[in-house]
């Protein structure tokens, strides 16, 4: 009871503080570049979190608008948070997920991240539909990461997310930790008809 009351109090203060802390300097997260670019994505064999074999380009990217992030399941620091950010994107896009936008998380540690491991990682975050976690043979994933511009594997992987409209052939980069509204706008722009407008 006491704990509940305290929690409630903390919530009120929290709300109040959010109001004025918004005025304080913004956190230094990498801003989205906004520049669009083309990506040649190889159609490599990969496995999803259910152990199904897929071809990365033709099954996950072709003709779609996709958001791609890079994770590994033994990472306890930023990967859970990136995944939470992706989950937020998924929730905010509602029924547009799986219709207009698809999500893909690529493991940068395919040797460790077998499908079962990806599945249990995904389950922790209650990931919804149209979100594929990807692993595969190390040489294939290495090639894929190089093609996606995220070649540095292991714990030094970037917090970058890629947002691409394959139908129109253009991609943008952002930070997974950028304000959610910024990333949502980028994603919706990319999913729209003027995705590749300068």
């Amino acid at each position, binding site marked *: 009871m006491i*704990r509940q009351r305290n929690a409630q109090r*903390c919530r009120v203060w929290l709300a*109040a503080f959010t109001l004025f*802390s918004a005025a*304080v300097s913004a956190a230094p997260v990498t801003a989205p570049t906004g520049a669009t670019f083309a990506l040649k994505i190889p159609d490599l064999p990969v496995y999803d979190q259910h152990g199904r074999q897929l071809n990365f380009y033709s099954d996950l990217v072709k003709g779609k608008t996709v958001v791609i992030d890079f994770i590994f399941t033994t990472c306890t620091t930023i990967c859970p948070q990136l995944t939470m*950010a992706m989950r937020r994107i998924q929730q905010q896009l509602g029924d547009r997920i799986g219709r207009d936008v698809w999500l893909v998380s690529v493991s940068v540690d395919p040797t460790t991240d077998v499908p079962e*491991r990806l599945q249990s990682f995904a389950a922790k975050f209650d990931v919804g539909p149209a979100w594929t976690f990807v692993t595969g043979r190390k040489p294939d994933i290495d090639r894929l990461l190089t093609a996606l511009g995220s070649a540095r594997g292991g714990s030094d992987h970037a917090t970058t997310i890629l947002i691409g409209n394959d139908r129109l052939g253009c991609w943008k980069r952002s930070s997974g*930790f950028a304000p959610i509204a910024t990333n949502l706008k980028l994603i919706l722009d990319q999913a729209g008809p003027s995705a590749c407008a300068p």
Partner: protein
Amino acid sequence: MTRGAASLACGLLLAAVGAHAAGLSGHSGDTLSGSEQRGKNVYLGIGVAESGIKARVGSPPAAAPAVLLACVNCHGRDGKGKPEGRIVPSDITWDALTKPYGVTHPSGRTHPPYTERLLVRAICMGLDPAGNELHPTMPRFQMSREDVGALIGYLKKLTSDADPGLSESAIRIGTIVPAGGAPAAAGRTASSVISAYVDALNRQGGIYGRRLELAQATLALDAPDADIQANFDRFISERRPFAMVGSVITGAEQSIVAAAERQHIPFVGPLTLWPEAAAASTQTFYLLSGVQQQARALLDFEKRRSPESTPAVALVYSQRTMPAAAIGQVQDAARRLGWNAVHAIDLDRDAPRMSVERLKTEPATTRVLLLADGRAALEFARACAEADWTPLLLVPGALASNDILAIHRSSPSRILIAVPSVPSDQTNAGSAEYRALADTYRLPAEEMASQIAALCSAKVLTQGLKLAGKALSRSTLIEALEGLADFDTGLMPRIGFGPNRRIGAPGAYIVEVDPAAQRFKQVSQWVDIE
């Protein structure tokens, strides 16, 4: 609410929490007070849901599962921060937080030293002492004043806090002995080998000047899961073992491994047929393969020998032996290895004779992976013989026991068995060491498999403790074990682990039952299934 009113309200909270936290700082010594232990649990993310701790994270902060955002995840066991992907979590050891001249971070952010009140503000509201917003990856926590006070109390102790069961002079190691039932004899024998090994090790000076102490839990493994967990938890909180080793936990794998995981206790070499039951474990290190890995080794071996490009195999199982999920995983593994038409027959549902008739009509099925033991397996073998059908039977050794020779008498089929170790794994030095131990400590001549497995567990744990060095902690032990490669116990295949490898020798040898000699004949080298 105006900004002034908000500050005042928060000020009252901070004052209250500050007083609470200050009350804790008088404690000293190796053990933590009740409140500091509570703070440590908050830090490690233990019991977060029960405490009602909530978190908001991201930009702008939004509700997120606090259980996935424990302090330790980013700041590390030592509080110094684990940089990753260009995010550098702050050093939150008390000395670093309260440096009198403040802190300038690599990002250029600078602020005066923290006080307890300012730290509460940082934890709850994400502001540093200068009022700068903390990075969006630092969660904003919502927790009771008792919890935040306890957490701050613990942060003051972080640098000097040793893991439970660890002192300058001793390392306490826990074992489990089953209270009764079939595993009790194996469990007692395993435990006596470990006692002997530990005593011998202590006589040689222990590990870096620390003696090993044994703490024994007697648990009824056939009790309901909740009781096993409660009893194990009580053992952990009363005896405070630093790590667990080599215990027979058959039948209670899920409960015990889950409890060890939850309590962050390294567990080396639990003796179980189901190491896969805890595939995502971080704390638990199994030595040998279990049913699933042995099934895969059989499929791998047989596929390589098969002239067909997509040979067929029938999975014949009993759900009393194999959990449903495990059957699905074996089936998936078979498909990935290139097996086709993987028929699955449930012996609990289908009468053996009907199953055999059904399989016999499939012309391509000449191999059966038998995932059942005891009577179910025997009846199936008899039904094969009666139907004059002689498929090749593939049997994981973990399910074989003595039934296998009986099966052989009931069926003219050839039988291949996957075993995790063969006598030739034993080196002269390894055998001599065991014999010396057995002579000195009058070890019984029964339950040899359990004895060897328990001894190897103790040797692997000892090697991990040595590699972790004098500055031992549970996390350095886990790191050391993950770095273990090709470790030769002298009694089983070489053991190695890795970040995603929790089975020391993931594979098996294939042996065939030799009906003439009534013994096993080795027909393969080591089949690695990684």
